[in-house]
Structure formats: structure tokens, C-alpha cells
């Protein structure tokens, strides 16, 4: 059968863009009342898990842009997260007595963006080696970057009058984040990255993953796209860092070592590298699962590890493979 009588047929039944935009706006707005009622009526523990799931989604989706979609195997995502977390944690702790009430929301927005930007600058710097390194060598260099961040954070007690905490960690950071802030960022992260890569402007990200030499021969500035993936991915990791710092109120450099990076990589691969909805699913699953396994106490992480191995053996392409759950076929990677 002729799969395409005309291009417009591809778009039949598609929701118009303005409606989707409006929908995204409504979803974010609706998060406010949801968040307020959650704060009131939901058990603190459940809320905590929900927020951690949100942070995990941001981390997994943003790493997917780098690893799964652009094909640049990075093992340093926790490093970007650490930079955001510390930027947010240090600033909010220092100024906690000056900011309250109506001042808090705009300041928090500013701080999350700032945390993201600091991480993004690091992403720019880390993105540069990717121009020379490939595959395992890139993986190990980014792992090194993450470890360097951890070690440096361990050493810095303070910067000027700002307390950083050094190896003792940074504590008593105000608990600013809540369901709303977290999931507003989740929506922004998913929508931005999905729209970007599933558009004419973003298709080259996939091309770089598939074949760099062919991509360059098609006029794609592969350097630009690789660095862009790192910068955008790092930005959202930084944002996730700020959110998690203000969730627990505590920061410890050790929280951001390569094990954390690996946990995020596992989410991406388990969900299916390149599949954004897959990353979302895996982030939910892999944050929720260990909670459920709490009943098994000592054997919890053993079971977690076994499940991971079995899942890879049974479904190596990840939950969704290269597909998306609901995007239309025209954009779906086949």
C-alpha cells in the first residue's frame, strides 16, 4: 500500500499545536491546587517518594538526550546534578533568613535556573572532549569528570562567606521544593526535550547517534549538536539537583559519585535508549521498586540487582526499545 498519499495524510487526526500548548499550560497550572492538596492530605513519605520520582524523571530524560538520543555515552550525569544541587543549596541556605513569604517563589525559580545554568556551563566544558573521544573512552572521561566534582566538593569548606560544607556535607538547607515545583519542571523538561528532538531542528541529534560521518556529509555540524546535547542535558540535571537539595535539606558530596550516575544510566537503558517515555517509565519504576522492596529489608538491593539483570536478559532493548508510548508514527523512530 502507498503509505503516503500525501504529507497531510500523515497529520490527519493530529491535535493542533495551540491546543497542545494550552494543554501543557493547563497541566502546569493544575499542579498548583494538586500540590496544595497533596501537602495537606498526603502522607509525607508518599509525597517524598513522588517528588523523588519527579527528580528521577528529569535526570533520566535529560541523560537520555545525551546518551540515548545523541549517542554520547556519558557516565558523569551525577556531576552535573551535584553542581546544581550545591549552587541551590549553598545560596538558599545562606539567604534563608532574607527570603520568605512572597519573595520565595520567584527566588526559587531564579535559583533553580541558576543551578541549571551552572551545570550547563560545566556541560559546555565537558562537551568539548566529546569532540575527540568516543564510546568507552568518552564514558570514562565523563566518569572522571563526575569524580573530580565529588572530590572537589569534599574539599571545599566554604567559598567566601558562603558555607559549602566540605566532606561533612551541607545541612539544614530550607525545604523549598514541593510537588508543584518538581512536576512543573518535569513537564518543562519532557516537553522541551521531546519537542526538540522530534522536530526538523532536532532530528540531527539522532543522526549524530546513527552515523557521525554520514551526518557531517549531510551538512550537520556534529560538534554543535553534541555540545548542545551536553549543555541541555546538564542544565536539566542541574535543575534536578536544586530540587533534590531542597527536598532532603542535606547534601553530601558522596551522593553524587559515579554510582549515582550509573543509576541514571540504568534508567535510560532500561526504559530503552532513545525513548523519552521509556525513560519516564523507568525512572518511575526504578524509584518506586526499591521502596516496595523495603519489606525485604536486607535482601532489598540484592533483589533489585537481580531484577535488573533479569530484565536486561529478557528484554535487552529496554522496556520501550526505540519507540515512544504515544507519539505519532511520523515522528516515532521505527
Amino acid at each position, binding site marked *: 500500500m502507498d503509505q503516503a498519499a500525501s504529507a497531510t495524510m*500523515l497529520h490527519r487526526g493530529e491535535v493542533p499545536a495551540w491546543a497542545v500548548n494550552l494543554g501543557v499550560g493547563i497541566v502546569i497550572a493544575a499542579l498548583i491546587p494538586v500540590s496544595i492538596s497533596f501537602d495537606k492530605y498526603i502522607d509525607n513519605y508518599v509525597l517524598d517518594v513522588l517528588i523523588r520520582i519527579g527528580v528521577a524523571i528529569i535526570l533520566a530524560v535529560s541523560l537520555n538526550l545525551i546518551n540515548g538520543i545523541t549517542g554520547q555515552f556519558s557516565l558523569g550525569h551525577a556531576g552535573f546534578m551535584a553542581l546544581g544541587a550545591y549552587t541551590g543549596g549553598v545560596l538558599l541556605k545562606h539567604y534563608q533568613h532574607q527570603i520568605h513569604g512572597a519573595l520565595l517563589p520567584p527566588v526559587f525559580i531564579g535559583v533553580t535556573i541558576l543551578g541549571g545554568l551552572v551545570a550547563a556551563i560545566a556541560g559546555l566544558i565537558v562537551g568539548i572532549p566529546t569532540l575527540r573521544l568516543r564510546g568507552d573512552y568518552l564514558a570514562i572521561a565523563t566518569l572522571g569528570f563526575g569524580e573530580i566534582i565529588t572530590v572537589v566538593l569534599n574539599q571545599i569548606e566554604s567559598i567566601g562567606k558562603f558555607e559549602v560544607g566540605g566532606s561533612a556535607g551541607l545541612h539544614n538547607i530550607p525545604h523549598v521544593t514541593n510537588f508543584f515545583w518538581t512536576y512543573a519542571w518535569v513537564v518543562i523538561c519532557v516537553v522541551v526535550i521531546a519537542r526538540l528532538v522530534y*522536530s526538523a531542528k532536532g*532530528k*540531527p541529534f539522532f543522526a549524530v547517534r*546513527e552515523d557521525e560521518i554520514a551526518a557531517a*556529509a*549531510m551538512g550537520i555540524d556534529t560538534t554543535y549538536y553534541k555540545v548542545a546535547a551536553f549543555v541541555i542535558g546538564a542544565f536539566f540535571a542541574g535543575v534536578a539537583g536544586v530540587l533534590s537539595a531542597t527536598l532532603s535539606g542535606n547534601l553530601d558530596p558522596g551522593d553524587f559519585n559515579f554510582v549515582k550516575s550509573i543509576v541514571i544510566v540504568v534508567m535510560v537503558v532500561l526504559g530503552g535508549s532513545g525513548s523519552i517515555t521509556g525513560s519516564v517509565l523507568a525512572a518511575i519504576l526504578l524509584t518506586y521498586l526499591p521502596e516496595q522492596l523495603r519489606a525485604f529489608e536486607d535482601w532489598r538491593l540484592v533483589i533489585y540487582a537481580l531484577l535488573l539483570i533479569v530484565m536486561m536478559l529478557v528484554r535487552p532493548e529496554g522496556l520501550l526499545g526505540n519507540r515512544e508510548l504515544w507519539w505519532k508514527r511520523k515522528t516515532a523512530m521505527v
Partner: protein
Amino acid sequence: MALLEIKNLGIEFRGLRALSGFNFALDQGELVGLIGPNGAGKTTVFNIVTGVYRPTAGDVLLDGKSIAGMKPFRVNRRGIARTFQNIRLFGGLSVLDNVLIGFNQSVAHGFLGTLVRSRRQQMEERLHEEEAIELLRTFDLVDRLHDSARTLAYGPQRRLEIARALATRPKVLMLDEPAAGMNPQEKMDLMELIGAVRRKFNVGIWLIEHDMKLVMSVCQRMTVLDHGETISVGTPQQVQDDPKVIEAYLGKAEV
């Protein structure tokens, strides 16, 4: 002034001279062949012209401006597109996406437009899709739009690679053994297609081919390489009668 002009081009790999004193010119709408035995340096010429290798001697001019040593993506943006001897499609992407990626430089809207899915962005994407489908129709691939490129058979993969190259709207199209691995019937069809492309898109086509008979039947002129040296230039007839060419190909069944 020719569209593509190559002067005295040469390259060495660690002291090994793989190409020397190569001269060439190609005009709009021409179809010219490049032949030679295995390891003669044909692919190397293509790689230098498209910026994969930097020449150690000579110059490459497109529209009179030097492009030698430029990065591959810049060379493509100047108007040279190519295919690869060992097919390099975006295997995990759909046939349609492979061609759409070729249009990437014609995307006029910015990142912001992409993020809010502006009207302009949507119009542009739709336009590109129509164009891509039209292009794929020419290459008889339109019934495979949504299949991943990897799942295509050998012949269709070669055709898709040409379609993808054309999507970058080149002035010069360079094809590295596009008929390799095809059966005689497929080869004949492909040559016909290449002829049609030349007329329809008015591009200059430069073609590497092993099969002498095949090139001779379609090319207006040709260059023969052996061990990095140009041993003969001229019309198919002139080249065929050149004793040096016969010598280079001695023992080869095709001659």
C-alpha cells in the same frame, strides 16, 4: 570557470603517496565517471573533496572558491553531497527521516519556534515532508516511508542514500560505487535513474564505478586512476582504446 575544479591534488598517508597530480573539472548537468582498479585512490579523491581528508597538495575549487581542507559539513553546505561505498544510512531511523535530515540546513525557524511549535515551524515541516515524499517517489521508496532504513534490501538502501544526498540540494552529487552488489538488471535501472536525476535536478554528477561497461554507457567523460596517478582522461571511447588503461585492467574480465 567550471562548477567544480580540482587542481594538482595529492595526498600522502604516513609517507605513502595515495594520490598525486590529480586534475579534474565538472560542470552543472554533467555526468562524469571515475574508474580504476582496487586501491587506485578513487574513494580517496572523494574523501578529500568532501573534507574527510585534508590534501597534502593542490586545491579544490567550487564556484571558483577554495574548499580544500574545509570540514565535511561545510563542504556539504557549499553544495557538494555524496554517498558512501560502504552504505552509511541512519539505519535506526525511518526512510522518511533519513531524507528529512538531509533538509536540515533549509530549516529556517529557530529553536524557540520548535519549542512552541509555531505556525511557521509547522508549515515548514509539512513542506519538507511533502518534498521528501516527492523525492522518495522518484526513487521508488514511497511505500517504505516508515520502515527503518536498516530493514531495506541492498538496492533500495543505495537508492535511499542518493535520495538523502539530494535532499541537501547539492550542486555536485558524488556517488561512490552506487551499483556495487547489484544484479545486472538493478544496475541498468539504477543507471537510468541516475540519468533522470541529472536531468531533473540539473546537478553535476561524479560517479565511481568498477564496472567499465556500465560507466561507459552513461558517462560523457571519464578519468582513470591507477596507484594514485591519472593514467587516462577522455570520452569513454578514448579511454577504452588507451593502451595504458588496458594494461592497468589487464587480466580483468570486463575489458
